[in-house]
């Protein structure tokens, strides 16, 4: 079972603070948590909300409706009051109103803790009280968070937490809370998991031009840069960022950048450069809806075919698309290793939903465990950077040793110097493209969830994993035989293996966060699919499991 709490209010009002306190407290109570955020592109005002879903089993995505709504403004009550499950509870910050539990949070905070600033703590305490949970883990958390600000701040906040719980004690609530008492959990966000994996894998250089929702990974890396020894550079634009990454990669440093679709558009020529120069570059693309500036703080999966085709000319690349916070970590590492093994651009497609999703996960590794940069330590003096090989992968040296390393964006001879000789061009173009066979041999197979003989098969990629997984479980529980195949690597594909994995179910549905079914298009192009249904969502908000299940059933 699971229960969903939604904290909604204006930006700057403490939606994030209250949500953050609750997420951490629930994890310490031994509950599984998945938390997602929905916010408008502004620093103050608007309507933002933070969905915290808790349960006794691992959770992968948000619920559609809240069991408990914490409305910090009238607008939150008006807009989201109807999105509460039947029999749910509404906690309202204000004077008494019909059908809601009303607390004037700021007044209580002021009376109890001596400051209106502690209103968020009153709210968090009240939520714990309504659900019947122990407030002491929250008190311990407050002591850790505010310890530096002094004893008064800590004790004031703790008193507010207790007061919040007291005020709702005995209040009528039909909610049944998941039982606490499991092992304390760790919470991690997708954006940070990507950054942590990169730091552990030995990334030495990260540069970016800030762009939501990619920025969270960039700032995470900046926050651990001194600890891991990473050079962090804010580029003047995305063109500079990708070219700096190419320079760093040429020099031998594992290097990466983060962006969103619009910034990636500016990087397209640099992707082609990495293809031609055979540089291991890693780009994290956190998608948001377009076209153009689009909806900067919302989510979507509209850039798959763009990522697949970006960059002029033809060259191999790999594209990963994590579906969970754990996969954000694992696939970042895999992407970096793949880029270095094949000296090619490798992309990771995530989105606002997964970047901001916090999940309880097994603790992720933090000790440095560098990938193999695949660099020749002792190249011969007569070294040719682009020696023609069967695999297409040429021994890679970096400048500064005995061998001169010559790399060119023009077509070049094996020694890296520019040429207009068409035979030399064919030899190099074929060499580069031969690397794709190696990429295919290492391609991750899709992961199946659900019965082998399911009549309905959902095809998913990237962040739709969680909602689709929940939908599959709901459908099977309701007697509809359904399974899903999740693609955490979307390019290149082992066509034969994918065809076998798909098999011949009665019904195939591609579940995608875009309008045109880009993944279905990709699969048809790869020759693994002829026809399928589309189940799309381009609202700017993520799928929910119940939504997918209902749409499949109808």
């Amino acid at each position, binding site marked *: 079972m699971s229960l969903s709490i939604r904290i909604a209010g204006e930006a700057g009002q403490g939606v994030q603070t209250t949500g953050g306190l609750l997420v951490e407290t629930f994890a310490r109570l031994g509950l599984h948590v998945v938390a997602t955020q929905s916010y408008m592109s502004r620093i103050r005002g608007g309507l933002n909300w933070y969905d915290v879903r808790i349960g006794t089993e691992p959770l992968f995505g948000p619920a559609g409706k809240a069991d408990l709504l914490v409305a910090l403004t009238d607008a939150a009550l008006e807009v989201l009051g109807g999105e509460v499950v039947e029999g749910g509870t509404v906690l309202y910050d204000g004077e008494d109103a019909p059908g809601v539990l009303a607390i004037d949070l700021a007044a209580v905070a002021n009376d109890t803790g001596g400051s209106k600033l502690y209103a968020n703590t009153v709210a968090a305490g009240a939520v714990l009280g309504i659900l019947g949970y122990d407030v002491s883990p929250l008190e311990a958390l407050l002591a850790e968070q505010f310890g530096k600000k002094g004893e008064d701040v800590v004790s004031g906040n703790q008193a507010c937490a207790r007061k919040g719980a007291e005020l709702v004690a005995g209040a009528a609530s039909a909610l049944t809370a998941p039982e606490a008492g499991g092992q304390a959990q760790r919470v991690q966000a997708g954006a940070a998991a990507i950054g942590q994996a990169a730091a552990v894998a030995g990334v030495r250089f990260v540069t970016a031009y800030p762009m939501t929702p990619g920025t969270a990974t960039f700032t995470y890396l900046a926050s651990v840069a001194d600890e*891991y020894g990473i050079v962090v550079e804010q580029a003047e634009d995305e*063109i500079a960022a990708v*070219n700096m990454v190419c320079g760093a990669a040429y020099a031998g*440093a594992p290097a990466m950048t983060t962006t969103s679709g619009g910034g990636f558009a500016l990087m397209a020529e640099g992707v082609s450069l990495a293809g031609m120069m055979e540089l291991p570059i890693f780009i994290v693309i956190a998608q948001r809806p377009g076209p153009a500036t689009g909806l900067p703080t919302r989510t979507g999966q509209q850039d798959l075919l763009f990522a697949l085709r970006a960059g002029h000319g033809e060259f191999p690349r790999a594209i990963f698309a994590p579906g969970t916070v754990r996969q954000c970590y694992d696939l970042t590492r895999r992407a970096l290793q793949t880029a270095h093994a094949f000296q090619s651009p490798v992309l990771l497609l995530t989105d606002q939903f997964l970047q901001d999703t916090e999940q309880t996960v097994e603790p992720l590794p933090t000790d*440095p465990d560098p990938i193999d940069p695949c660099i020749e330590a002792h190249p011969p003096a007569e070294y040719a950077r682009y020696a023609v090989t069967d695999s297409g992968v040429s021994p890679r040296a970096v*400048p500064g040793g005995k061998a*001169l390393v*010559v790399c060119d*964006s023009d077509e070049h001879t094996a020694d890296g110097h520019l040429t207009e000789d068409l035979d030399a061009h064919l030899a190099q173009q074929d060499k580069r493209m031969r690397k794709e066979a190696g990429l295919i041999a290492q391609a991750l197979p899709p992961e199946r969830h659900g019965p082998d003989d399911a009549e309905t098969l959902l095809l998913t990629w990237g962040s739709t994993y969680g909602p689709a997984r929940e939908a599959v479980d709901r459908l099977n529980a309701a007697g509809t035989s359904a399974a899903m195949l999740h693609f955490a690597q979307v390019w290149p594909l082992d066509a034969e293996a994918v065809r076998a994995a798909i098999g011949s179910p009665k019904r195939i549905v591609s579940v995608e966060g875009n309008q045109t079914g880009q993944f279905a298009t990709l699969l048809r192009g790869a020759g693994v699919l002829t026809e399928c249904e589309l189940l799309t969502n381009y609202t700017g908000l993520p799928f929910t499991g119940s939504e997918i299940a209902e749409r499949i059933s109808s």
Partner: protein
Amino acid sequence: MSLGDADTHPAWCPGCGNYPLLKTFDEALDAAEVDRSKLVLVSGIGQAAKFPHYTRANVFNGLHGRALPAATGIKLTRPELTVAITSGDGDMYGEGGNHFLHAVRRNIGVKAFVHDNQVYGLTKGQASPTSEPGMVTKVQTHGVMSVPFNPLALAIVEDCSFVARSFTGERDHLREMMVAALKHTGGFALLDILQPCPSFNRRNTAKWYKQRVRPIDGAHDPFDRDAALKLAFTWGEEIPIGIYYRSNRPSYESQVCPVARSRKKVSGTFF
């Protein structure tokens, strides 16, 4: 290893200023005692950008206008390498203009040798950012109407740590300036090299430059920013050549890299 003995034959027109430039650069590297195995020549696209291919050095010949960010990525991860750019007025000041603004601002330890012939050579004679008003081309059929970009003044305004100008027709002077730029250790070095383009620039010919270039007076204090700016705005009947400006700012890599290299957790990397 020596420059100029690579197997390829330069794809430049006869009379191109790049020929004396290539030879002078080779001499300057020797004079400045640059270890060529630790030298990376970075370029973008244009006639100047072909230059590294006619040398024996480590080469990164990247995209048009993007030599500076690539060089910045190299220098920030391998500060022990000597990183030099050979670029043209189109590549550095046009396509790469934004990067130029920010590379100077950072004071990244990269030496930019900009072959400034005031015209686009590779694309056959269109105006460049430094073309003079009135110059007629196949595109600017009524003559150039924009004010020329002033790279030296801009670099001085941004407190660039080394700003100089020379001319391919004064080889001893050019060599001296190249050596000074190569020996500069305090960050970004800009050497704007005036160069005739006999194929496409009929205004600013070798003779035109020869009549105008004047070595900067020995009394000029390169740390005097006002005096340097005055020199940077001197153009026309007289064009100063020499070191316009110096400043003692710390290089970018000297500030960024020690922090990154004092890492606590790192192990197993090759450098």
